[in-house]
């Protein structure tokens, strides 16, 4: 028997705010988290813009042994997970005794790997690297660290799917719980922010060079967009069976009702219409709803010329031109491996507080975005059901549909 799947906790460590309250304030006010990073200038970046959040001080929360295997992805993810678990009313004692899984999105550990290799280059002796680096270096770093800290006993896998990693992590968690294989899974996405992590991406010329006005650089769907702005942090969602959530008296923030996915099977970096079209349609079919049930679309739109156009076409083809659409990446930049999870969390905050966060910097539509209803300013609106898109390099697509919980 298929089970209903709900979200009982969210946590955010984001460039637009640490913690839900700060993020909510930024979402309401269209506040940008983008800065000009002078370290990237010295390092040879074409564009030095980035979303920025400071590394957290974990000493108050974790022992030396627990911290030593953590670099940025795990550090950020610990902070967001801590918040999500608190909201979901879950603690280590409960997690140790009640099987709980973790499927976390992450697709790089560049900063950690380079720092380790620099040590070996300098000392020419691997025994002087130290014990923590291997656990920082592996792509499953978030899973390794969080599963041991929180004594998790369920499914434990990392999901690497480029910029759709966070979204697929929620989707896969949803499927496992729906099928009765797990009662609750910690899902999410983490994205490192350091000069090593985005250098090769910058080299593709995909980033905005509107560096004189960082807050205006990321302009999803706008006619004058000139590229994305990289960003990072972490977002965590506690995904749980309805029975488990009700039994525990946990808050229910939304119900996941649809997960669509697809692969383009074409170019390694260029998006395509067909893949996105199939992902959106599959999500609707899984949710068993018609397109007019969707009250809001949180678009993937990263502010690249081709990507945004393709998504506008796909949204128009599947959902029509009336449904309100915004991309929060105007504020956050592209949170990459984190984005699919954070944007579901941002949308849950909008649903809970009945507003649509602005697609900032949307001033003039192009020939594709003019066909959809991009929301440029804070708009009060009741949202009963939303769809969140995430698309990644390699042509991986994910669409999630989440609605308000009704018994």
């Amino acid at each position, binding site marked *: 028997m298929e089970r209903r799947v709900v979200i009982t906790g969210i946590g955010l460590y984001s460039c637009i705010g640490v913690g839900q309250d700060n993020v909510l304030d930024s979402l309401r006010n269209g506040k940008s988290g983008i800065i000009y990073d002078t370290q990237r200038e010295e390092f040879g970046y074409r564009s030095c813009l980035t979303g920025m959040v400071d590394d957290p001080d974990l000493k108050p929360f974790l022992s*030396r*042994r627990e911290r*030593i295997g953590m670099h940025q992805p795990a550090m950020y993810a610990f902070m967001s997970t801590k918040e999500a678990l608190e909201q979901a009313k879950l603690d280590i004692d409960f997690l140790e005794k009640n099987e709980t899984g973790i499927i976390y999105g992450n697709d790089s550990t560049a900063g950690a790997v380079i720092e380790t290799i620099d040590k070996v280059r300098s000392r020419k002796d691997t*025994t*002087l690297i*130290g*014990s923590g680096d291997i656990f920082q270096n592996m792509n499953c770093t978030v899973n390794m660290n969080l599963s041991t800290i929180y004594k998790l006993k369920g499914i434990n896998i990392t999901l690497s799917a480029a910029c759709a990693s966070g979204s697929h992590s929620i989707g896969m968690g949803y499927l496992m719980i729906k099928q009765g294989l797990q009662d609750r899974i910690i899902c999410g996405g983490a994205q490192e922010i350091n000069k090593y992590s985005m250098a090769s991406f910058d080299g593709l010329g995909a980033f905005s060079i509107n560096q004189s006005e960082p807050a205006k650089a990321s302009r999803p769907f706008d006619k004058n967009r000139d590229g994305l702005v990289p960003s990072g942090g972490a977002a965590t969602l506690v995904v749980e069976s309805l029975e488990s959530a009700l039994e525990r008296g946990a808050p229910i923030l939304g119900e996941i009702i649809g997960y669509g996915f697809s692969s383009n099977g074409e170019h390694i970096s260029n998006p395509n219409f067909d893949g996105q079209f199939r992902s959106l349609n599959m999500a609707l079919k899984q949710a068993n709803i018609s397109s007019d049930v969707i009250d809001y679309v949180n678009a993937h739109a990263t502010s690249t010329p081709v990507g945004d156009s393709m998504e506008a076409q796909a949204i128009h083809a599947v959902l029509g031109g009336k449904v309100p659409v915004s991309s929060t990446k105007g504020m956050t930049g592209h949170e990459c491996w984190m984005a699919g999870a954070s944007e579901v969390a941002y949308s849950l905050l909008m649903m809970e507080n009945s507003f649509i966060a602005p697609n900032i910097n949307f001033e003039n539509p192009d020939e594709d975005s003019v066909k959809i209803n991009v929301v440029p300013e804070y708009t009060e609106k009741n949202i009963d059901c939303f769809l969140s898109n995430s698309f990644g390099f390699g042509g991986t697509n994910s669409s999630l549909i989440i609605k308000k919980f009704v018994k």
Partner: protein
Amino acid sequence: MSRDEIIATTKRFLSEEFEVDENEILADNNLHETLDLDSLDYVDLVVVIEENLGFKPTADDFKAIDTFDDFYDLAERKFAETA
């Protein structure tokens, strides 16, 4: 480096790395228990000893050490060998 210098240096870097109070690093206290070492911690112990005292203890060296005094003896021997 004199024995007093070895002791002062060791207390400083061990308390920093392993987050123990310097007052717990007493000559007759057991090194392994005081620092609460697990198998991975020995890897880090080698790194900080090499960084601060300039030699790399072996696994056999650690097996022969019980107290901090034993470690100071080892450090003195290592310095004498390289003098």
